[in-house]
């Protein structure tokens, strides 16, 4: 028998990890001389109590859903795609090129085109590490890290030397044309009397992100390809026996992963900045790791974890605004979440397993 019931594995373990991370974060806040309860209240206030707060929370969550799904899909094939950041950067390039050089009639056609372009560019950036892993056995973690740096250099070069409008100082593209700008929540939900989500960057890509959660769920648990990805992830030798090509699955899973990461750029580039800037990804590619770990690589888990991190990001920004706590607190919390849900998973799991075993013996 399994040592623990399924629900404990899927819910209890992440919750305890989260609790541990929260306790340590509180200690950090106390350590820098602030009140964690007050800080938490401020975060909730800023992130959840007003529609504009929600607007930011959901905006950040959108990023994390995409990158979280990207990491999760790769995890199912037992591949650790640490390159979401680079793939998202290059995905941004795809968005920018599509928006700048194709005359779209309206925003939804533009969104469709830009989505395809972003996914393609992101996937292409994942292709080389995937191919090298599949064919040459080059460790995908290292190659994707390297590709993050290479992506930054490539993007830097292209923005500075090619896409920067003449006379402009900062390395960024020109503003996208009107037809390629996405409606924000403010545009969508405000009525004449009440403005909702005022000034918040949340936009229509959030719904795309939620849709992608559903799509990934269907892909992983309802299709042949998903079955093969999971099989390969669990046992490469068995996959070979079943006639599942390790090379094909490695490449395909990474292409999907890269595509999802690339699509993140829709939110930041098309939805928010409306032009491509140098540091559009803001580390969201890495937060995807925390999100996927916490969400146990399940799309629903990813969605919830992404919302949590969206809350943390917006709450953290509020903290930085009103208190002496810098935004980097979120980075610490993020680190602690990765640590407890990922690396120290066994520390939480082992005592729990013993507990369940003891309980079962008594019963």
């Amino acid at each position, binding site marked *: 028998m399994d040592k623990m019931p399924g629900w404990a594995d899927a819910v209890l373990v992440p919750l305890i990890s989260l609790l541990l991370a929260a306790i340590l974060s509180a200690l*950090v806040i106390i*350590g*820098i*001389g602030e009140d964690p309860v007050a800080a938490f209240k401020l975060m909730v206030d800023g992130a959840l109590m007003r529609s504009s707060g929600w607007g930011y929370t959901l905006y950040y969550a959108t990023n994390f859903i995409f990158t979280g799904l990207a990491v999760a899909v790769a995890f199912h094939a037992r591949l*650790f795609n*640490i390159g979401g950041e680079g793939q998202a950067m290059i995905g941004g390039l795809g968005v920018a090129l599509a928006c700048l050089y194709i005359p779209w009639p309206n925003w939804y056609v533009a969104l469709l085109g830009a989505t395809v372009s972003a996914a393609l560019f992101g996937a292409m950036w994942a292709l*080389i*590490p995937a191919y*090298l892993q599949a064919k*040459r*056995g*080059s*460790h995908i*973690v*290292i*190659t994707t*890290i*390297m*590709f993050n*740096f*290479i992506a*930054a*250099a*490539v993007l*830097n*070069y292209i923005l*500075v*030397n090619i896409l920067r409008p003449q006379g402009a100082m900062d390395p960024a593209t020109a503003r996208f044309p009107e037809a390629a700008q996405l409606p924000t929540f403010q545009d969508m939900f405000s009525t004449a009397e009440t403005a909702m989500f005022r000034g918040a960057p949340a936009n229509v890509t959030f719904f795309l992100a939620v849709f992608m959660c559903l799509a990934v769920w269907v892909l992983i648990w309802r299709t042949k390809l998903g079955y093969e990805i999971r099989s390969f992830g669990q046992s490469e030798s068995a996959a070979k026996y079943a006639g599942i090509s390790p090379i094909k699955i490695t490449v395909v899973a990474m292409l999907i992963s890269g595509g999802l990461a690339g699509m993140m750029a829709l939110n930041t580039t098309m939805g928010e900045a409306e032009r491509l800037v140098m540091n559009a990804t803001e580390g969201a590619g*890495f937060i995807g*790791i925390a999100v996927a*770990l916490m969400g146990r690589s399940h799309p629903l888990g990813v969605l919830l974890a992404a919302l949590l991190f969206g809350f943390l990001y917006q709450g953290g920004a509020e903290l930085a605004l009103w208190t*002496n*706590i*810098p935004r*980097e*607190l*979120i*980075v*610490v*919390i*993020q*680190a*602690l979440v*990765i*640590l407890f849900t*990922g*690396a*120290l*998973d*066994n*520390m939480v799991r*082992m005592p729990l397993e013993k507990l369940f075993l003891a309980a079962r013996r008594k019963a």
Partner: protein
Amino acid sequence: MDFATLLQVLDSTVRLATPLLLACLAGLFSERAGIFDIGLEGKMLAAAFFSAAIAAITGDVWMGLGAGILASLALSVLHGLASITFRGNQLISGVAINFLAAGLTVLIAQDWFSQGGRTPSLIGAGRFEPIILPGAAEFAGVPLIGPIYAELISGHSILVYVAFAMVPLTWWLLYRTRFGLRLRAVGEAPEAVDTAGVSVVGLRFVAVGICGILCGVAGAYLATALQAGFVKDMTAGRGFIALAALIFAKWRPWYALYACLLFGLLQAVALRYQNIDLGAFVVPVQFMDALPYILTVVILAGFVGKAIPPRAGGEPYVKER
């Protein structure tokens, strides 16, 4: 390019290669023992902050160095706890450590100094000063050798010499001592070490500890010798370049030196020249930035020699019959 410029570039190469070399050797100890470490960056960063902070507070750079090493060591212990004791995923642990350091350094810097995540600039005994080797001034006049000795070899901080001395020392430790034999064995076949009656956990913790100390020195060098104080994210990916160098060097100490010098040279050139005009085409500075990573990918791809990592690398040790 005249001789003086060349010397300047090489001198800058040595200074830029030093943190890479220290971090690379740190990674070598850890990975040779079977513990992958992508948290070199974070450990360097933590060490850089704490060394600068303590040096700023006490005015004593040696206290700073000690604090830096301790900070880096603490993260090493965390990495060891996650990856050795609790058999967690070493890569994930490394990622977490990088973020932890990135966040905590700024958080604490802001709390302590309120200078937007910086430490105050270090002055006087708060920094490692260049050491003028005996005879540097006298020999400077000798053609060719004189300037090389005076500019290139002499005039670095003590940590530079420590870093370069670590290369033969590491080699000797690894291949000529009992400790080295066991260290290499535990990265290749921990079960062999275990059944031979040697503690796998102990050995790996020692290796991770050495890694922490060397990362500590590397970080302290960054903040107290190369520059005068800590700024947010000052490692700027050096931990990853060191990782790249380690793979490039195929986990060997002498190759590590060459790889770090090469990557140091690339950095030095990129610093000095924005774009390099080769006549027919211009090499953009971004290409120079990316070159270490590109080279590492090429090496990893096995097109230029195969980089085979230690066999038990990345896998937690579980006793099996």
